[in-house]
């Protein structure tokens, strides 16, 4: 497996016989559009390619009139246009933020959409787990007493710690692993702006879990879950999403693997 890295301009001083200006432009445009594959629709990519080619060709024409050789003019025009991976990265960043089709995604941006989907699901699964544990077998709802005695009955002092059972440990593993998986998926899909979106979504979910946890008292699992979300899910989820975004961008823009068939 080899690696097709960033587009590299040929060395200066190549004459017409050594280099082909048309092929150089094509190669540059290939490198520019390849990272957009799978995210930006074909119609958009082809339009970007066509417009970029026009820009470069126009720049080449101006330089040829200034007395440069076609190869040198093409080389300078491409150099002026910018690194292929930088142009495509900027295009993709703008695309992900503002242009994707779809009502909600268009309004809040793709990173926020992915963060909402993954982190809301992960949070709600945890909450459902706790809800089922306490209310699944005993569906009788808690009633809030008005007298101090009734109040103390609902909120005994000290509040009980969660019971240690294998289900509780399985839940702890879930609480530890879930933000890492959700963060990774968000960053991997969103590529950019994932960490900020995760923090926004998680602060909302943490508030929801705090409210749910308070309603579950005197059982404290819900509150512990909300605390875990605040101190672990928010930073770990945001960091994982950021790292996954960086990794995905590096993979997409700079170190694209080229798979070769084994002979």
């Amino acid at each position, binding site marked *: 497996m080899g690696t097709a890295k960033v587009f590299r301009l040929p060395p200066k001083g190549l004459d017409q016989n050594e280099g082909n200006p048309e092929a150089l432009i094509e190669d540059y445009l290939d490198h520019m559009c390849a990272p957009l594959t799978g995210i930006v629709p074909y119609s958009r990519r082809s339009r*970007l390619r066509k417009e970029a080619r*026009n820009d470069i060709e126009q720049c080449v024409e101006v330089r040829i009139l200034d007395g440069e050789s076609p190869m040198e003019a093409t080389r300078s025009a491409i150099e002026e246009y910018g690194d292929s991976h930088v*142009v495509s990265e900027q295009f993709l960043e703008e695309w992900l933020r503002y242009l994707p089709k779809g009502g909600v995604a268009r309004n809040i941006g793709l990173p926020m959409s992915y963060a909402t989907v993954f982190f809301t699901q992960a949070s709600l699964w945890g909450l459902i787990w706790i809800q089922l544990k306490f209310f699944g077998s005993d569906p009788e709802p808690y009633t809030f007493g008005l007298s101090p005695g009734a109040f103390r009955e609902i909120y005994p002092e000290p509040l009980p710690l969660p019971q240690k059972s294998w289900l509780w440990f399985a839940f702890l593993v879930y609480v530890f692993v879930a933000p890492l998986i959700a963060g990774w998926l968000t960053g991997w899909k969103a590529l950019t702006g994932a960490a900020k979106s995760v923090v926004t979504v998680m602060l909302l979910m943490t508030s929801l879990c705090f409210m749910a946890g308070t309603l579950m008292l005197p059982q404290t699992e819900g509150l512990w879950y909300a605390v875990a979300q605040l101190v672990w899910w928010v930073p770990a989820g945001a960091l994982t999403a950021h790292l996954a975004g960086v990794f995905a961008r590096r993979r997409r823009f700079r170190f694209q693997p080229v798979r070769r068939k084994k002979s």
Partner: protein
Amino acid sequence: MKKGKPLSREHAITMVLAVLSEGPRHGYEIGREVEKITDKRIHFNHGTLYPVLHALEEEGCIASEWVAAAGDRQRCIYHLTEHGRTEFQKYLSAWKSFSGAVNEVLSRVENPFTALGGVFYGHG
């Protein structure tokens, strides 16, 4: 040489609408025009320019047209629509109001006499 500071999206939209209000242009020309007017203090990244143009086109602020250029080539020319003109006026008045307010504050601070006076008379 390091190129100028890249534009934020809102400023990029205002610049694009401003340049197109002078007449139809293609993408590259818009970027060059901005750089020329600002003496390269503002640089239009190509990766930023086209999404802005495409978004403005989707919103109906500008329209594009492929026209024949030299040889067999075609060139995409953008021009402002009526809706775009109205939007540009909104952006322009918002920008003038904002920059006017900032200038007022800065002109007070830049004037050492006013600043010192404020300190002497207990207003600073």
